């Protein structure tokens, strides 16, 4: 049976012009604005639950509330006391799950779940990223409390959202992810809040497909 070419779609309607990259419908827009929002839905996202002091916890090496990039270029975020969310290149989900499961021993309860399709992931980048987020989120985003690599889960525009500060070349940048079904709403709320700062939607490139 010849299967149809079913493409993967983000919950966020791609900004014009749309294109298909590696089986995903994405936006081909290119923006030079000082504040941009990118839909990063295609990136692999893995939810890991394990004991912080177990083999997997030690391997991941990132404590709760912080993020770090491992030697394979995977961004490991400590999203809960015994929980991590991993972000890898497009299509790497199965390998990441396997890597985690290979490490788990007989006695340790470890679960690795590919949530690529269940989490909407966006990247907000620019000098005004912090004041924009402060319109939607009550957490102190200052450097003392939320420095680069900080990770927290909070209400953003009244949606339970994970926020990862992941600056790009010294420019403030935040990865924002929530349950997929809220993705379109949250994307819109970020654009609405960013209007006064001149926010623009930027497209998703194959370069970004390689990771965050």
């Amino acid at each position: 049976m010849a299967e149809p070419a079913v493409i993967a779609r983000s919950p966020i309607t791609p900004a014009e012009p749309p294109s298909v990259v590696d089986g995903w419908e994405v936006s081909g827009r290119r923006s030079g604005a000082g504040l941009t929002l990118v839909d990063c839905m295609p990136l692999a996202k893995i939810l890991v639950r394990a004991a912080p002091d177990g083999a997997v916890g030690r391997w991941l090496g990132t404590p709760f509330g912080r993020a770090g990039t491992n030697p394979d270029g995977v961004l490991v975020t400590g999203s809960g006391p015994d929980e991590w969310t991993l972000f890898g290149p497009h299509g790497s989900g199965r390998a990441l799950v396997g890597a985690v499961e290979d490490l788990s021993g007989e006695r340790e309860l470890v679960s690795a779940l590919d949530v690529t399709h269940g989490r909407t992931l966006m990247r907000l980048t620019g000098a005004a990223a912090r004041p924009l987020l402060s319109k939607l989120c009550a957490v102190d985003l200052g450097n003392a409390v939320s420095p680069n690599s900080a990770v927290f889960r909070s209400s953003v525009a009244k949606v339970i959202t994970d926020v990862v500060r992941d600056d790009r070349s010294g420019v403030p940048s935040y990865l924002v992810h929530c349950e997929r079904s809220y993705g379109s709403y949250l994307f819109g709320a970020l654009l609405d809040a960013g209007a006064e700062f001149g926010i623009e939607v930027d497209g998703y490139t194959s370069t970004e497909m390689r990771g965050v």
Partner: protein
Amino acid sequence: MRRKAQATGVDMRLGPRPGEIIDRSRGLTFTWDGDTYPAYRGDTITSALAAAGVRVMSRSFKYHRPRGVMTTSYLDPGCLVQVGDEPNVRASHRMVEPGMSARPQNAWPSLRYDVKSANGALAPFLSAGFYYKTFMRPKRLWPAYERVLRGFSPGGAVSPEAAHDYYDKRYAHPDVVVAGGGPAGMAAAVAAAAAGAAVMLVEGEPELGGHLRWGAAPELAALGDLRRAVAATGGIEVLTDSVVTGRYDGNWVAVVQRSAPGVVERLIKARAGVLVAAPGLIERPYVFSGNDIPGVMLSTGARRLINLWAVKPGERAVVLTANSSGDAAVCDLADAGVDVLKIVDARSGEDVVRAKGGRTLRAVECADGTTVECDLLVTAVGWTAPTSLLNMAGDRPVYNERAARFFPGGGHDDVLATGGIAGDGSLEQLIDHGSAVGRAAARRAHEVSATTEIPSLPVEAHPALFKARTHGFVDFSEDVSSKELEEAVAEGYDSIELAKRYTTATMGPAQGKLESVNAVAVVAAATGATIAATGTTVWRPPYSPVTLGALAGRSFEPVRYSPMQPWHEAHGAKPLVAGQWIRPDHYGDPAAEVRSVRSGVGLIDVTPLGKFDLRGPDVPKLLNQLYINKWSKLALGSVRYGVMCAEDGVVLDDGVTGRLGDDHYLMTATSSGAETVWEWIESWLQTEHPEWRVHVARVTSDFASINIAGPRARDLLSLVVDDVALGPEEFPYMRVRSGSIAGIDGSFMWRIGFTGELSYEIHVPASYGLGVWETLLERGADLGVKPFGVEAQRILRLEKGHLIVGQDTDGLTRAYGAGLDWAVKLDKEDFAGKPELGWQEGRDDFLRLVGLRPLEGTAVPAEGSQIVEAGIIVGRITSSRMSPTLGRSICMGFVAPHLAEPGSAISIVAPDGSRVPAVVTPQLAQVDPKGERLHG
């Protein structure tokens, strides 16, 4: 260029002043009460009108007396106007804009001839408590009274058609918030920032500077220095035209930013390490007869008008002065060309008795017996310390007789005071004090020191001047006079808090900042107590009135969409708001959708179903705890229906759970109950059984879920699945399989049914949901596949007799009442609700859920209709629909136990009062009760 107003033919604009804030190169026009007036950028509505010689800006709330400028500030009680569609605009604060249309309030038919000013003649009868006393009886006439009284209610009007504006909110976490941008406030901000603190400096006026702005050359020089220091010091966020409206526990500080770019107002929720209150002092009006006549102004008001807006406040003036502000006003008036006819020096015991005039001041009668004809009376009799923000931190102000004003009580580590409310002294002393407070605030915010010593400011002597020997207005906002306050005391309201509430003094838009000390002084004099013993009223948030728009801010109402939402929208689905989800209710004809499912095959988007991924060896223990039925022997690849009850035995949710692997399960919950179930699961795992080795993840959004239902369901599924055997033997009812659907790996198929038909619930990775949905419709075209919505699903399940938790159960429905006896396994070791259900099992006094069939097949009693017997309610309808399959109406409902037997006749009372006779059916299912279609 002179810009005389055509409407008045008067030009009171002065030549350039050193500190003026108008831009004479940018002239504009606006309208006031229908006439066009000239103005400059930087003018307020009242400064522009005053420059055109306009004296009456509004009518007062109660007596409709003509009122004009008094303070030329935000507090001006007689200058609330309507601007466009916006009521109650502070005309002495709001800048004019080109084309602005401003109108007076509280006046009909015109500001000049206001019919309701007849209230003034009735003033002797409209004393405090007039409404309470007069309109109590007869009680039956109150509706009529109310209609008349509402016609007298003050304020402007908002059109229901008014366009919505953009109001905003944001959060902030500064180390130090400085409330007040006068010299002490600016110095505090600079010192705190220099010490490393992140500072938010909040100023109510459009510019920093406080009283320095309308001062003489030395003050203006100091102002320049301080502004430069603020600008040069990093770490200070300056918010002008903004106000700290409240201080709450934990130094949660509310700031309203009135003129941020792109937004009308913004509410800033700031969590401050330390709050520095530096609001300065507010000049007190003097109480005497005629003190509200247009032309009677405070010294600061006159000086602001002259020096900020270059407007001459009058031609011939009398000045009552008891301090340096009054003396400075004399100089400014003379400099502006005003003929100062008489200086009444209160420090020498001189006084005024009354002001005379109507729409404008005509003369002032002095205590020495002289009467001076004039159009301007300037008073400078003392100050009020607005200690509101300190009061909100628990501070109680203390009266200082020497200074004749209240001071903060003190003693707070995280709320400090500086500037005029903390004491007097030279400008240098105030700046030094501000700097010391700023440094202390930074240290305290960084928890370096909690008790840093702060030097005191001197306290200068000031005459205690509150009221002349005549009565006048104490509260200009509410039209409360000193006479009314004395009468209130005479009636027994002899506490300032009682007198305040009885007379409404201090309760108007000025919120006590102009009138509270005078009210205290009048009450003290009337009771014979001292001002110190009388005390003050309590200042509570907000410090300044806040618009509803600012409180509301942006509307965040999250909505959730399925991956197939674009298809639903494109194909005319009527949206159904189901909690946060937007779902297709139907695609035009729900009955046709039902028939399509019964006769062929249909698709419904069931993505909102709650879905949970459960892993670990102790999952069976968790399932046994959550569900009332048994779960220990669920075979691999099997699915079981389960019912959850709360600990009181009330039905909480239901759904199916399938076993995907040895220690891997997938649980579903109802769409509306998913969040509750998630919290319920986590509650058991985190608080009751943390030792259980279980990991649970919410995966509702991870999968696009589609139910394929109808006799051709298997045929349709087989068109997109080739790695799973779909035959009835290989894939029987209540089983789950994983595989590839339309080429999408990682998909699941459940053979279950809510509609009563052969059906498969498929779950595909959400990003492919739309593609799979379209593929099913495309490939199933020859099978006649049609989408169906929630309404059709509700009909189908009612025909089949499946209950919906929350629809056919309520907050009192225990499992036995819902007909779930078969599921309750009291022989299990434990489960949520077991004790209560054990108790219910032995009783026979609860309502039962039954199927019902109206005798008249066209009658569909509304859901919620009562079932009655001999005038007593014995049940209610929970679900009712016209069944397209049976061609008649069917229902489900609760009935008393003696009516639950099949064949029992019942009587339903429809909302219109008509009776609908019905009979109890043998079982809940009214279509295919034996399940032959389901198992097909």
